[in-house]
């Protein structure tokens, strides 16, 4: 039987409450370009991977892809979105 791999995207961003100088820099420059009404900008990174077993991606995040002391992650599959244990997808971000 063929192994079916799944395209997974992992979004990693600075944890809430941690100063994000990159996000701040982007937030400051947008109004100068005429984009008003922008707040809470955060810059993170995207890891894309094809995996045979989607259940391994959480442990991958915990061990390597994210540093959970300073970062939170979201795992996006074609079916669902799973986030770091302590962060809900709709949690307000400062």
């Amino acid at each position: 039987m063929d192994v079916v791999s799944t395209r997974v995207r992992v979004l990693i961003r600075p944890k809430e409450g941690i100063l994000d100088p990159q996000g701040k820099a982007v937030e400051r420059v947008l109004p100068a370009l005429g984009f008003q009404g922008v707040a809470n900008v955060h810059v993170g990174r995207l890891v894309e991977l094809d995996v045979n077993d989607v259940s391994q991606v959480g442990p991958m995040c915990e061990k390597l892809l994210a540093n959970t002391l300073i970062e939170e992650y979201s795992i996006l599959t074609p079916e669902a979105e799973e986030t770091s244990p302590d962060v809900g997808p709709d949690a307000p971000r400062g």
Partner: protein
Amino acid sequence: MPHGGDRSVKFGVLQFPGSCDERDALLACAKVADAELLWHGDRDLKGADAIVVPGGFSYGDYLRAGAIARFSPVMESVIEFAHDGGLVLGICNGFQVLCEAGLLPGALLPNVERRFVCRQVDLEVVDAETAFTNRCAPGELLSIPAKHQTGRFYAPDLDPDLVVLRYATGHCFNGSQDEIAGVRNAAGNVFGLMPHPEHAVDPLTGSVDGLSIFSSMAHAGVAV
């Protein structure tokens, strides 16, 4: 490597792809003891009594600074060595590696101004009774260069007793929590700092204050 110090102590200096300060670290160690480079792919610590994880950009700093180096074969041995009480010093990228490995508390975030900064800074010796500062006086100021972009130390709920070095007033350019420059583990055998003592061991470069970190380790190594 020939040396000018105590023959009974041997330093092992790690070398990763992307390390750039391992030669200076080797020369600094060799001023106080015996010293040898240890390749990242080799698990053998070659009988070293103390380990230095040097600065640079191990594995290109891919993913996060230190995140990949932390899983290298040599680091497996260093983690075991540290758990057995062996002395481990992490400088700059080495500090990042030790934090990623969980040998030191906290993490290093991008500098508050986002820029790479290279400048001479003064560090205050907060704790002069550690294995890494026993050749310093309490409150002594060490003039040592710092050069990094990801050096903002962050450690929620840090035990203040673990702070070994602090940036002197006006010298903390990276936004580190409580202006902390160097921190140790609870057992006291692992220490990390962002500034580079290995670049301050020869009068030619303006300061020899960094030498006291290496001579302290050599002294502690003899005592062990």
